[in-house]
C-alpha cells in the first residue's frame, strides 16, 4: 500500500495568549522568540494513522510538505515516526494561505510521486485552520474523500474508516485510492524510536520547486486566490475575574455558596 501524508509546519499553537503577537499590517503572526515551530497536530496524527497501517500491513509512507527550508524539520519528524521518504515543496511562488493553491501544489507533487492508494491529511491546520485542503485535494485527484477519521483499517473492498461524529462514530467502507482527513481522536502520536531518529537525521530530503512538479506558474499568481484575508486582530479580553482570597477550604465554602445561590 502506498500512502502519502500531507503535513504542515505551523507556529506552536500551544503558546499562551499572552505571547501571541500579530502584525495587523501584513496580517501575519509574529513568531515568539524561543518557541520553535512544530508539526501541525492533526497532521501528526495523520502520520500516526499511516504508521499504524504500516505496522499492520506492508506499506510505504511518503510525507510531503509545503514550506520554507525550515519545514524540512517536519519531514524529518515524519521519517522519524515511520515515513519512508519525504519531500519538501519549497518555492517562493508557493507562499500562500489559499487552500486551492495549497491543494493544487500538493496534487502536482502527488502526481510526480506516482501511484498511491491512500492520501492522508489532517482535518485542518493548527494555525489558520481553513479545514478544506483535504477535500479540495480529493476533488483534484478525483478520488473519494472521507473526513474526520480516527481509525483506518484494510478490508476486502478497500478501507474501513471510523469517523468521528458528535454523538458517536460512523463506520464507512471506501475503495482505494482515496483521501482521508484525520481527526485528533486517533490518539497520541508515537514517540520516534532512536533508530528512526538517526535515520531521519541522515536522510537527504529532496526539495522540489515549482518547475520540478510542473506547476503552471500563472495559477499561483496573485489574484487567483479563492479567499483572501483582509484583516487580522487579536480580540481584546479584559479580565473581570474576582479572585477569592483565603485558604482552600474558605475558598471552597465561598464557591459552594455562590454556586448554590445561582442554581
Amino acid at each position, binding site marked *: 500500500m502506498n500512502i502519502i501524508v500531507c503535513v504542515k509546519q505551523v507556529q506552536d499553537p500551544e503558546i*499562551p*495568549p*499572552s505571547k501571541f503577537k500579530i502584525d495587523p499590517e501584513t496580517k501575519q*503572526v509574529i513568531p515568539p522568540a524561543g518557541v520553535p515551530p512544530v508539526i501541525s497536530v492533526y497532521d501528526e496524527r495523520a502520520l500516526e494513522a499511516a504508521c499504524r497501517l504500516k505496522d499492520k500491513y506492508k506499506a510505504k509512507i511518503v510525507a510531503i510538505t509545503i514550506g520554507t527550508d525550515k519545514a524540512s524539520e517536519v519531514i524529518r519528524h515524519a521519517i522519524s515516526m515511520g515515513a519512508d521518504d519525504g519531500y519538501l515543496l519549497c518555492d517562493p511562488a508557493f507562499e500562500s494561505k489559499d487552500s*486551492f493553491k495549497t491543494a493544487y501544489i500538493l496534487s502536482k507533487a502527488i502526481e510526480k510521486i506516482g501511484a498511491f492508494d491512500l492520501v492522508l491529511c489532517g482535518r485542518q491546520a*493548527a*494555525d*489558520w*485552520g*481553513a*479545514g*478544506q485542503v*483535504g*477535500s479540495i485535494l480529493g*476533488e483534484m485527484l478525483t478520488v*473519494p*474523500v*472521507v*473526513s474526520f477519521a*480516527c481509525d483506518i483499517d484494510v478490508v476486502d473492498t478497500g478501507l474501513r*474508516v471510523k469517523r468521528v461524529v*458528535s*454523538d*458517536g*462514530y*460512523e*463506520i*464507512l467502507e*471506501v475503495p482505494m485510492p*482515496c483521501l482521508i482527513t484525520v*481527526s*485528533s481522536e486517533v*490518539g497520541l502520536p508515537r514517540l520516534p524510536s532512536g533508530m528512526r531518529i538517526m535515520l531521519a537525521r541522515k536522510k537527504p530530503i529532496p526539495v522540489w520547486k515549482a518547475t520540478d512538479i510542473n506547476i503552471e506558474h500563472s495559477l499561483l499568481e496573485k*489574484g487567483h486566490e*479563492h*479567499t*483572501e*484575508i483582509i484583516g*487580522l*486582530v*487579536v480580540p481584546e*479580553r479584559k*479580565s*473581570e*475575574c*474576582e*479572585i*477569592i482570597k483565603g485558604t*482552600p*477550604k474558605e*475558598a*471552597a*465554602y465561598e*464557591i*459552594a455558596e*455562590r*454556586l*448554590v445561590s*445561582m*442554581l
Partner: protein
Amino acid sequence: MENNHRNVLVFGEVLMGKIVPITLELLAIGRRLADDLGEELYLMLLGEGTGRLGEEAITFGADQVYFSEEKLLNQYNSDLYTHVADSFCRRVLPSVILFGHTDIGCDLAPRLNGRIGGGLSIDCMDLSIDKEKKHLIMRRPVFGGNAIATVISNRVPQMATIRPKTFQPLEKNLSRQGDVIPLEEKIDPSLIKARVVNYIKEEVEGVKLEEAEVVVSGGRGIEDKKNFTLLKELADLLGGAIGATRVACDEGWVPAHLQIGQSGKVVSPKIYIAIGLSGAMAHISGCLGSKYIVAINKDSEANIFNVAHLGFVGDWKEVLPPLIERLRELKGK
C-alpha cells in the same frame, strides 16, 4: 465581482422530521444577508418528508425552499449530498451558501467547495455584507482563537459554516410568503463511493454535555483518570455533566467525546467550572458562551483567569473535597 450568481442559499438539516435549530439560525442570518444584498433567501432540504417542512421554513425567513424527497438522501451521505448540492448550485447559481458548523456542514461544505471552486470560510462567528462591493465579509477565529481574521471570497459561491447558537432564529412570521419547489433529479446510487456500514452511538450517562446547565471541566492538572471521578461527583451534585480539555482526552482520562473546544464540543451552560486547565484559546472557544465561569488553577497567570468570573489560585486537590462536602451540606438543607 462581476458574475451572474445571485441569492443566498441555506443548506438545511432535518432531524426526526423537524428542521434543526441551527437551520433556523442560518435562516435568520441568511435573511439579513439577502436583504442587504437585495436578493432572495433559498433553503435546501434533503430527504423523505422534507416537502411538508417548506411552509414552516418560509415562516422563518426563507423565500424559496427546494427539497428532494429522495429516499437515498434520508441519511447523510457525503458523496450523494455533495453531488446533489453541486448540481443544484450549478443550476441555481447562488452567490452565498451558508452551512451549520455541524457534522454535516463540516464535511459537506469543504467537499462542495472543492467541487464547485468557490470560497469557503469555516467556523464563522460573524457575517456581513460589504454593500458597495456586494461582498460577503466573514469573520472567523484563527490560531486556535488567539486571533480573529476577516476573510472575503474572490470566487462565487461565497460559503461559510457557522457555529450553532451564534445567531438567534427569527420570530415565526405566518404571513410570510414563498415557494416550495421539489427537486426532481433522479439520483444514481453508484455515486456512493464511501458507504456507511455501521453507526456506533457513544453512550452518555446522565446529562448530555451540550445540554447541561452546569459543566465541570478538567485538564492536565487533574493528572489521572481516577481523579476525574471527583469531578464527576461535583458535576452530579450540581446536576451537570463533565467535560475536559484535549490533553485530558488524549491521555485517556475521559472519553474523546467529552472534549470541549475548537475541535470538540461547544457548550454554553449557566455555570462552567474549569479545574486544572490553563484556558488555551482552543479550549476556551468551546465554552465562551457560558454565563458564569469559575476557575481553579494553581498558576495565577493562567489564561483561564482572563475569562473567568470567579477564580481561586491554588491546588484543586485542596479545594474540591471541601467544596463537595459543603455543597452536600447546603443541598441537604
